[in-house]
């Protein structure tokens, strides 16, 4: 232990005097803090979007209630057209009364953009088929979307490993080239432990800086309470294990006994392959093996349903009346029933196409998930998005809850429209609401194992290499 500590202390002293090391560590901390600040700004914008959508919803429904009051009291000067009549359930559920299904940012949302810049955080659910509202996008310059934003996830998965590699690539080779290795080994009572101590000093510095900068940034920009959350513990675990993976890789390469230049090139090559090329290749292979089916199919299905319904409008209406009780022929009531019949036909077809689409996407993503164990970068990136609540799991959950809410919404309005019931003030007070979700669990265990096992193997390999050097 003494040799270990002596090695650690000596190396820490050397590092503290190296200006380049100081610059690299300060740059890493500054990058992490800036990324978290940018993340906090982004989260504030998302919160504003959700708040604006909710305010718009409140204003719309309030307006409908006021118009309803005017109509019921007989104070209205003339009858509104059906699409503006708050009593008309078929039209109101399809737009004017639409509720917002919002996905509010999680406490650690500032950590990773994930899919939050592509998926809408506030969706106006209507009684139409999903194609009418599910794909409303937020406005964003596509060139900026394709660049991605600066977030902590980016700093952790791409920049942080390079700082670790820069510090750890030449512990043995550097000392060997300077001629100090023999002296170090000879001076220590337990040379292996002394080398391990020196290596630990080089590894602790970047990992500790990354952890402390993340904690400071999260505390400053998301509130100090967030540091006590399980989400932050998961974030810390990902930073630690991912950092250890790259450190173990650097130590393993250093243990091979090559020159510093050779180590540097090998490690940069490994970083390029594992952090850049492997994710790109995995995404391309998965997209080639299981191409995402066209979303256009879904829309065309809904439109085909509408034309078919148009073509057999009488047959559809007759069937509808048979299924839903008697209804007077002709007039606005028949028009409403026909519209509902068309909507239901479109709804069924769109649900079918969406289910098939999701199944195909599921196969593509399952392949990506399996292959991502080949790249710790992919595992860390997905884990950080899950910690932030901007990953796939939360969006899948949101889609599921959205589907259930859509059914409730349709049932609420269409049951009234089919029965010919006018919407009342009580109805407007008891509109179905989309429930907020709890804090995302964001399981990172699989990712930690996926990074941890290769780390252990590399550490074993490095240990063998270091032992060979010890006299």
């Amino acid at each position, binding site marked *: 232990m003494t040799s270990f500590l002596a090695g650690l202390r000596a190396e820490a002293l050397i590092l503290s005097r190296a200006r380049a090391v100081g610059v690299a560590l300060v740059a890493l901390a500054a990058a992490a803090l800036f990324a978290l600040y940018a993340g906090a700004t982004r989260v504030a914008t998302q919160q504003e*979007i959700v708040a604006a959508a909710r305010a718009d919803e409140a204003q719309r429904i309030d307006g409908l209630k006021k118009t309803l009051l005017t109509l019921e009291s007989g104070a209205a000067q003339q009858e509104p057209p059906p699409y503006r009549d708050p009593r008309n359930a078929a039209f109101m559920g399809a737009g004017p009364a639409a509720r917002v299904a919002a996905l509010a940012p999680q406490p650690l949302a500032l950590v990773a953009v994930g899919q939050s810049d592509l998926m809408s955080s506030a969706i106006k659910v209507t009684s139409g088929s999903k194609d009418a509202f599910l794909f*409303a996008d937020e406005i964003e310059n596509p060139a*900026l979307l394709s660049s991605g934003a600066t977030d902590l996830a980016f700093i952790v998965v791409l920049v942080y490993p390079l700082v670790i590699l820069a510090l750890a690539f030449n512990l043995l080779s550097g000392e060997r080239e300077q001629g100090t290795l023999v002296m170090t080994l000879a001076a220590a009572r337990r040379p292996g432990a002394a080398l391990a101590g020196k290596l630990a000093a080089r590894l602790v510095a970047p990992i500790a800086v990354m952890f402390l900068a993340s904690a400071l940034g999260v505390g400053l920009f998301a509130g100090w309470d967030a540091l006590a959350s399980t989400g932050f513990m998961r974030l810390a675990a990902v930073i630690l294990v991912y950092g250890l993976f790259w450190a173990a890789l650097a130590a393993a390469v250093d243990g091979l006994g090559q020159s510093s230049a050779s180590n540097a090139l090998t490690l940069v090559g490994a970083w390029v392959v594992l952090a850049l090329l492997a994710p790109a290749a995995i995404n391309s292979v998965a997209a080639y093996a299981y191409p995402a089916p066209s979303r*256009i199919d879904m829309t065309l299905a809904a439109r085909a349903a509408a034309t078919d319904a148009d073509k057999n409008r009488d047959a559809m209406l007759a069937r509808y009346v048979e299924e839903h009780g008697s209804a007077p022929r002709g007039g606005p009531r028949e028009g409403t029933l026909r519209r509902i019949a068309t909507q239901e036909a479109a709804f069924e077809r769109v649900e079918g196409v969406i289910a098939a689409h999701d199944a195909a996407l599921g196969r593509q993503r399952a392949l990506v998930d399996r292959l991502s164990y080949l790249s710790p970068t992919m595992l860390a990136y997905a884990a950080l998005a899950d910690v932030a609540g901007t990953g796939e799991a939360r969006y899948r959950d949101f889609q599921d809850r959205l589907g259930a809410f859509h059914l409730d919404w349709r049932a609420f309005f269409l049951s009234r429209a089919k029965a010919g019931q006018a919407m009342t003030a009580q109805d407007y007070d008891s509109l179905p609401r989309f429930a907020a979700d709890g804090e995302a669990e964001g399981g990172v265990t699989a990712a930690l194992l996926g990074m941890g096992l290769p780390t252990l193997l590399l550490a074993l390999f490095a240990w063998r290499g270091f032992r060979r050097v010890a006299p």
Partner: protein
Amino acid sequence: MSDLALSPAAASARAPGRFKVIRAVAAKEWLEMRRDRRLVALFAFAALLMLAALGFGAAENARLSRERAAAAEADRELWTSQGAKNPHAAAHFGQYAFKPESPLALADPGVDPYVGTAVWLEAHKQNEAQFRPARDGGTAARLGGLSLAFILQVIAPLVVLLTGFASFAGERESGALKQLLSLGARPGDLLAGKALALFGAAAALLAPAFICAFVAVALLADPSKLSLADQFLRLAVLTLGYGVYLAGFAFLALGVSALARDSRAALVALLAFWLVNAFVAPRLSADLARALAPTPSAQEFRAAIARDKAKTFGHDETHPAFVAFRDETLKKYGVSRVEDLPVSFRGLTLRRDDENGYAIYDKHFGALQAAFDRQDALRTAAGFVFPLLAMQPFSMALAGADSRAQFDFATAAEAHRRLIQNEVSDNIIHFQRDESYVAGPELWRRIAAFSYSSPKAGFALAGAREAIAGLLGWLALTAVFARVAVRRLRPL
């Protein structure tokens, strides 16, 4: 007399021509590169990656083209098979305009995954393109796919830097540089020779990729729908652009190598620059562009349009603008009742409503695209220092996959929507006599299907002016830097 006394004085020896020196230096560098197995393996790996990227790109491009052509056909079938209905109901049923995939997107998909692939053309409303493919990609897809552009923009500069970082520094360490300089070799000639060899390496990197891209475009592009000559011109300009991009990295590597105290320091400095250029600058510049030229949220954008639309009458017959339009129309036709008009007043109101809408949409969508253009210009501004900021927009523009190309498509789609609206309103104006009026399939067939021709290379080049200036600035800056750096070389 000894041989020594007879030999001519070194000072009076005829110096070889500068070009000969440059050629000799280039030949020696080139030979060393070819003999370095690690470098050969690196180039072979990069070439394989590029070919794999092209393969994936070609397969994806062909799939998307097939998919969109089939969708366009199916949508046309739906449109023409509408039964008898009022033309305005048909305008509400609408059509879809599908964005055709640019053939060169197989080399650079650009912003295509982040823009909508289809625009719904409906009555009264200009819609944004919907169905961004990236939405379906999941979190991992944000780490990128294997495209030729990615390899050329990110990996190829790394290969050039790794090839060139030791050019001067390595020779300084071995003592060869001192020897060369003391023999009278001019630093400028050494730079020219080494640069020539590195350019050759960059060309060797580019050649297989672009030859294969030419073949892929020739085989996959449909000459009946677009000009192959235009595609080849775009590819040729792209090749030049990537040549300039990589030549700048060659000069940078030589300059840093000449200045650095040893090859390790040169490598560290060059890798740091590569990292900033490839990963940090694009994200930071995107954040900066967002902050300096903000765009409205979707809700703000739609609310602003709705505010302007509320000033027009739409279907609201009680709106003061409607009453004014009715009175103006009655006066124009010299009648006192709507029923006495020789044409359908409903048709006239629909046409007027559409015309009001066109001006409103032009104003708002034009302002939005102008904001995107400002953001793009801000991002490209530092392209002469961090060349990826210039290379990306240049490459996307030439590949026909930038946001300007998307705007051109959206504008064409909107023009088609207006054509549909004008046709159906005219039909109502001239033929509708009462509420029960319906038109038949002959009207739906008469309204042409949406057909879009992508703009020519000149359009892409005009849009990429700032990026071209950035790339040329980058080459000039690095060339001057390398020249200044080698001037500091001294024999002693």
